[in-house]
């Protein structure tokens, strides 16, 4: 068969970037199903044909795990979808996840040559397409792994960083056990990112893939409580430990009324909705308060997720309260756009100062003040400055505080000799994940603070290489 002959391709610059069909806003706010339907095979081939196969591909440099982007896109253009998926999996164990939640516009797609003149190749959409194609068509195969090395590695936390470390090390022949505190593996992919953006059965099938590779998984194991890091080494005989416990502790603003009923952290709100399936209550046992008017405080992806979830939970009005302007919002453009389409009302340059409650201690309104932008601050963004006398009230029955998370203290506080910074993040070498304690590596949000799925995976990839080296040589 002349299968290898490439089809004649149209000129890349003559094809526009292919949009991904999605549920219309008025329909999707009434359900928790995924918003985009994904590309069709025809659209995927057409989009892949736009790639000019650069000799010196900049896209790969923009990817924290260095996915072989031109190679996999070439396979897509030739209709070899399953092969394309396997090509990605050589460097990325979670393509269906990354294709959905990576900020491609600031990573692989940003340096794309096509983007200089027009629109970059939709790398993320193609990644998602091939991962879905492989899974849905039942073509997922587990590659062979290296011969057993006899070395045992404990991975603490089954989020993006931990799953990546586990996937890499098990392929290198090490005996890997992942310990997860919650009852389901996936970390933020399960409790934080909503079903409509990342279906939970996709996360679970990616976890299942890591397990099929040979990694063991123990849920309900709270490292630092059920077992300490030191015990993993001394009593359970692990040769190395990777800590990827993530950013847990939700931040609050410490303003009056923040402990009123109806004021949630985004973590609590999203955990109830996603992991505990509150949207199915009373079929599922974990509830969320019924809300009509919701204020979400913050401007990141988590704030967008919370706002869009609140809408789907039946809120009539959802206000996004953010103290800077839209330009400074850390959320992905696509998420902001989706939120706007779904009728989320943006109150920009606005900051909450007090929550007011009724006699039952339920929140009934949020008092805000208007802000204007001054000089840039340490973050490089223009500092919001209060406009005196601009106070006003929004009537609400639920508030979701989404201003970030600190480091979960359980591991640092129970591991003598493990150094942390003043925010409680574990100090680890950015290139290797090595901590102050021999044999203990760390990466992801617990090291760099709340960031993205792909950065955590990038840290996991580097740590896995360093752990492999350490297990071979014993050198620290």
């Amino acid at each position, binding site marked *: 068969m002349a299968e290898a002959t490439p089809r004649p391709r149209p000129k890349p610059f003559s094809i526009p970037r292919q949009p991904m069909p999605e549920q219309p806003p008025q329909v999707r706010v009434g359900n928790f199903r995924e918003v985009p339907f994904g590309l069709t095979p025809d659209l995927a081939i057409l989009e892949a044909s736009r790639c000019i196969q650069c000799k010196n591909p900049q896209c790969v440099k923009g990817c924290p795990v260095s996915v072989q982007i031109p190679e996999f896109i070439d396979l897509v253009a030739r209709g070899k979808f399953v092969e394309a998926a396997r090509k990605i999996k050589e460097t990325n164990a979670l393509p269906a996840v990354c294709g959905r939640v990576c900020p491609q516009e600031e990573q692989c797609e940003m340096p794309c040559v096509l983007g200089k003149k027009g629109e970059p190749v939709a790398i993320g959409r193609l990644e998602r397409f091939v991962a879905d194609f492989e899974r849905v068509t039942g073509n997922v195969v587990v590659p062979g792994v290296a011969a057993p090395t006899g070395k045992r590695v404990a991975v603490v936390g089954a989020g993006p960083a931990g799953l990546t470390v586990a996937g890499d090390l098990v392929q290198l022949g090490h005996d890997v056990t992942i310990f997860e505190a919650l*009852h389901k593996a996936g970390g933020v992919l399960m*409790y934080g990112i909503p079903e409509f953006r990342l279906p939970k059965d996709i996360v679970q099938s990616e976890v299942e893939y890591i397990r099929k590779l040979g990694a063991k998984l123990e849920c309900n194991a709270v490292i630092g409580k059920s077992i300490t890091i030191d015990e993993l080494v001394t009593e359970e005989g692990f040769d190395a430990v990777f800590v990827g416990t993530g950013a847990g*502790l939700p931040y609050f603003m410490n303003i009056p009324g923040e402990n009123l009923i109806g004021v949630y952290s985004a*973590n*609590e709100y999203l955990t109830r909705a996603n992991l505990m399936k509150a949207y199915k*209550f009373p079929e599922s*046992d974990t509830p969320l308060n019924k809300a009509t008017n919701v204020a979400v405080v913050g401007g990141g992806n988590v704030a967008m997720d919370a706002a869009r979830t609140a809408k789907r939970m039946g809120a009539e009005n959802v206000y996004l309260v953010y103290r800077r302007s839209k330009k400074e919002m850390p959320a992905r453009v696509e998420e902001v756009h989706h939120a706007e389409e779904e009728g989320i009302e943006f109150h920009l340059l606005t900051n909450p100062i007090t929550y007011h409650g009724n006699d039952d201690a339920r929140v009934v309104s949020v008092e805000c003040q208007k802000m204007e932008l001054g000089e840039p601050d340490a973050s490089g963004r223009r500092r919001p400055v209060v406009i005196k006398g601009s106070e006003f009230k929004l009537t609400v029955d639920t508030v979701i505080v989404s201003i970030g998370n600190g480091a979960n*203290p359980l591991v640092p506080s129970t591991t003598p000799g493990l150094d942390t910074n003043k925010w409680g993040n574990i100090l680890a070498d950015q290139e290797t994940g090595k901590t102050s304690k021999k044999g203990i590596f760390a990466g992801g949000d617990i090291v760099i603070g709340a960031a993205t799925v792909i950065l955590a995976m990038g840290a996991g990839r580097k740590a896995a290489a360093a752990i492999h080296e350490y297990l071979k040589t014993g050198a620290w």
Partner: protein
Amino acid sequence: MFPILETKEIAKNVYLQRILAPRVAKKRKAGQFLVLRRTDNGERIPLTIVTSDAVEGTVTIIFQTVGKSTTEFARMKPGDTYLDVVGPLGLATHIENFGTVVGIGGGIGAAPLLPIATAIKAAGNRLLSIVGARTKDLLILEDEMRAVSDEIVVTTDDGSYAKKGFVTNALQEFIDRGEKIGLCIAIGPVPMMRAVAEVTRPHGIRTMVSLNPIMVDATGMCGACRVSVGGTTKFVCVDGPEFDGHQVDFKELVMRNRAYLLEEKTAMERIEHKDGKCMGSVAVPVGGGN
């Protein structure tokens, strides 16, 4: 999967359960709790660990049926399994020789008090205990508490058994007779813990209480269990469950625990409807109060 070895009703709507959970059994210390989940649609329910057997690998919990989940827990028989058992969680009780310690358990609060009282006694303290309940049918662990105490007073609010009155009356009598109390530990319904704190406050007696807020993950991630202590917000699951009773904002705790009354009712009505009968219900998660 975590099999149940024993379930028994030890007072009206109060159940004792022994569960096989070796990791938790091995590590657990007085004052700590665990989280249970029965099915894939189930809630994560925090409950105090009363005792454990590291050799057998079992933990013992005592709980009162308060809503759908605990009602379903109570119906589980030996051989049934919990899907998830997580723990031990929370900080262990700080134990040292305080001299004389007064331990107060109100209602179901006697369950979390027992392991702490046992540890307090083992550390060489003189232990004066007060165990109380609204009425005789709700009194638990009297014999077990008696066994570890130097002196014990049992009270019932309605006088249906032992001494009529509140646990605070018995505490006041200890104070009035000139006991030098190094520490008072009070666990029970929030109004009881608050009342105890008000009795000890004027005397400057250090008073620890064990709190029972609503929790979800119980590992410091969600912030549902926050409570104001001395004007600062604390997460009970990682900073507690024990706090200085003179610093806790009990009013806020009571209010926050009412957050889901409506939803609880909906859930209960569903199983009552299914059963065609009414289940009585009061309260009690971690710490043990309502």
